[in-house]
């Protein structure tokens, strides 16, 4: 929980990503900046709902804003040098509109309420989404708000209607398995003139469980183990590969038919009840046959998914954790979570 989350950052436009922050190869100013950002973020309260106020909405002129400032200066000098009263009017009206635009820009985020919906568990290194609800209590719409995971630069744009709400999804890619706090999020707007950048940084309190990335091409499921204390322990060992299913034969009872498989593959497959009675499938950390903990967990994850697809009963044996063989969605989630938190 306390470990720094390993969010991989996409191409970043603003600021370095927290993941790369500690690396010693980063240049000194970058490191200072990253440290500042870490310190700054650690001060933000954790909350799944945030109402934006003056305290957490920041504003700075953008590059076009500085360009507008330079334009105003040139207009003013031209008006002075050519003594154009109408030039003064134009300059000051443009400046006035710019000031109003600054307030409009800040007001676009100020008063907005953001709520993070409970994030779904996900697999490491798989792109997934966080769902956020934006609520606008104002009588006018808030326009052109972009939300992203801080540092990724993958913005999702939305308008929030007047006195209504809107939902949006921001993409992120978790790097490591485990239970992690949801990464810091940021919302930004440059509406209406693009002359100011108004943004906020938000640290949700929710956590997200990240399962290990399933191995891409896992070997076949391990052989079944004879039931503890069973009479056929020895012969079961010799049957080799676990073979919990077989093609449907006429007369197989309905409850042995793998209906899920039928729905997916359009072929009738039955559980081998004899096998099932004699053997049980154990997915064992020690049997995963790979060096390295993460690689083994990846393989186990792939096996859990494969066994679940087949609909057979399977148990999971991890260092310090053991889940008894059974099947079903709840069991699968329990196994995956055990793999994630192991």
């Amino acid at each position: 929980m306390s470990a720094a989350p390993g969010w991989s950052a996409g191409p970043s436009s603003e600021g370095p990503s927290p993941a790369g922050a500690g690396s010693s190869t980063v240049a000194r100013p970058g490191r200072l900046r990253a440290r500042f950002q870490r310190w700054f973020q650690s001060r933000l309260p954790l909350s799944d709902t945030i109402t934006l106020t003056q305290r957490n909405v920041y504003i700075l002129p953008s590059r076009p804003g500085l360009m507008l400032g330079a334009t105003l200066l040139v207009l003013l000098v031209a008006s002075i040098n050519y003594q154009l009263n109408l030039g003064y009017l134009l300059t000051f009206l443009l400046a006035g509109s710019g000031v109003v635009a600054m307030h409009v820009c800040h007001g676009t985020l100020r008063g907005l309420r953001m709520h993070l919906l409970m994030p779904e568990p996900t697999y490491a290194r798989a792109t997934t989404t966080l769902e956020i609800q934006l609520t606008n209590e104002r009588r006018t719409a808030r326009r052109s708000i972009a939300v992203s995971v801080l540092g990724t630069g993958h913005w999702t744009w939305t308008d929030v209607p007047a006195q209504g709400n809107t939902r949006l999804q921001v993409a992120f890619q978790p790097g490591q398995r485990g239970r992690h706090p949801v990464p810091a999020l940021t919302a930004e707007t440059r509406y209406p003139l693009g002359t100011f950048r108004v943004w906020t940084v938000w640290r949700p309190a929710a956590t997200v469980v990240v399962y290990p990335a399933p191995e891409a091409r896992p070997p076949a499921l391990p052989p079944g183990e004879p039931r503890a204390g069973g009479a056929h322990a020895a012969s079961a060992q010799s049957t080799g590969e676990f073979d919990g299913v077989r093609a449907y034969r006429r007369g197989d009872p309905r409850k042995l038919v793998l209906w899920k498989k039928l729905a997916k593959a359009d072929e009738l497959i039955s559980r081998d009840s004899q096998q099932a009675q004699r053997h049980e499938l154990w997915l064992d950390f020690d049997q995963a046959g790979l060096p390295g903990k993460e690689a083994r967990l990846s393989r186990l994850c792939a096996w859990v998914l494969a066994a679940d697809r087949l609909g057979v009963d399977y148990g999971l044996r991890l260092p310090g954790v053991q889940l008894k063989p059974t099947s079903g969605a709840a069991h699968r989630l329990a196994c995956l979570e055990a793999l994630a938190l192991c």
Partner: protein
Amino acid sequence: MLNRLNALPRDARDTLFLLAVIAWIVMPQVNHLPIWCTALAAAVLAWRGWLAVAGRPLPSLGWRLALLAVTLGATLWSHRTLLGRDAGVTLIVVLLTLKTLELRARRDAFVIFFLGFFTMLTNFFFSQSLLTAAAMLVALLGLLTALVNAHLVVGRPPLTTALKTASWMALLGAPIMAVLFVLFPRIAPLWGIPSDAMSGRSGLSATMQVGHIASLALDGSVAMRIKFDGAPPPQSVLYFRGPVLSRFDGREWLPPAVRPGQRELPANLNVLGPPVNYEVTLEPSNRPWLFVLDATAQPPRLPGFELRQTPHLQWLTNRPLTDIVRYGASSHPDFRYGPTRASGAALIALRDDVALPAGYNPRTIELAAELRRDPALAAAPAPVLVQAVLQRLRTGGYRYTLDPGVSGQHSADEFWFDRREGFCEHIASAFVILMRALDVPARVVTGYQGGEVNSVDGFWTLRQSDAHAWAEVWVDGTGWTRVDPTGAVSPGRIGTFQRLQAPQGVIATALVTLSPDLLARLRASWEAVNNSWNQWVLNYTQSKQLNLLKNLGFETPSWEDLARLLMGIVVLASLVGAAWTLWERTQHDPWLRLLARARRKLAAAGVAVPAQAPPRELARLAGQSLEPGPQTLALQHWLLQLEQQRYAPAAAKAAARQRLAALRREFRQLAWPHS
């Protein structure tokens, strides 16, 4: 058309809109740009529009660089320079239109917007009229709309959404503009401006070549406006004196030469009769001339300038008038000036006023000799000779015309003998030459004469077309005396102020046919509006600023006071903003506020109340933890009433408000328990 526009993809629609705005900005300048520039701008905009509609790719870098090189060359060819105002305007227009061919990144779009703002300003070099201002306001709204639209990222919102936001921003920005406009210190130009800065302005010049004033005759732009205190003097004395020209080189009338070591004669002005007081609003002429009604003994009241009067009664400022100025003056239409006797220094000076260059106008000199041979005129004094010449003008078949044609070498000869028609300057010039040939000191005076009164606001307007040239003749014993020979040729020009009308357009003709008065009235109203625009906006100068400060109670206002006042307003606005923010942060729904008060009272009484509990929940909790009794019942009843006020359908808003007020009163009367 609109449907087709709506059916376009968003990119194409936005591009077309921006192109239209740019065209609108460039349009008012078309008269001042070289022809190739206008043509190129139009072609590039049309090409860009077609690319957008057809969805074609933008031209390659080579194309754009070639176009840029061509335009730079053409600008150099047209203006002989790339610097200075006129070349700068041409370049900006060209760059703005060429930039539309290059729209790769957001930065490019912003460059277009900011160039557009600058191009708008260049319009004001040529005109600061109300119409220009209105056109540029539309242009500003257009550019802001395009900018807002570029930042509406989601979907395909109609342009009206962006227009509404832009209009609101401009509307809310207007007070800021007004404050800055009124209080921003007006300072002198930071550095010298190129000499072509004023070339767009026409008016009287320092010399008079025959034919010059005629070129002003069609110029309807306003030279100055006069507001008389009380009744205006008779129209026949409305002569506003400009440069006096006494040196003639055969082709051109020049101001008197000041010989080194020669002391200028004093004006020797004596005024008679009551003065006429008036206020003049003078359009910028880029000349140091103040036009006043003949003759002004006291300097015109124009703060910020040093004034001096020439011996020829002209008032000069210490620097050219590049801005509209307003000054008060009092004149005496009845006056005498100049030397009364031709003796001493005056004799030498007067000798200059009979000089004629050799080799010019031999027939006019012959005419003078012929007149002198007339026994009645042989030794006649100046007034008699003047009358004789005026008589010749009246009866000799001479005509007043706007289109006298080009004069040759002997301009006076041509007028007196060949053409027999001319504009005021021909007449005045020929008259003065003849008088000098008669050995009568005479000279040409230029200025404005006449004008027309605006029936709406009572201002007199003098236009460039009112520019006039007349003569002054020196009369022994009296001094310089005004003679207007044009009046002898065309009495209407001086007497009733009917100027020769330039041919009118179709619409104007139709209007006149419809109602002869209508056009005059329309014009009068328009002039009045324009005049107030000039008085309040264009004529807002440093002196007016300082006057404003004086009215606000500053004793010796300076521009530092302006800055201080401006800062004060900024601070005040910030404080108001901060207060508003504080207020915004607190709960300002009265019902919610009342509920919060009740919640606090219950919490003080020891009831555990959740932050978001509604009244009914509060009533339930109160019933649980407070001692049962009539007090608690009353409390619960009140809370349920509060709920009902909010959620029961109210008949009218007013009734609901009254009910809430009653509940607030009851709240104070309730006995809240204490823990």
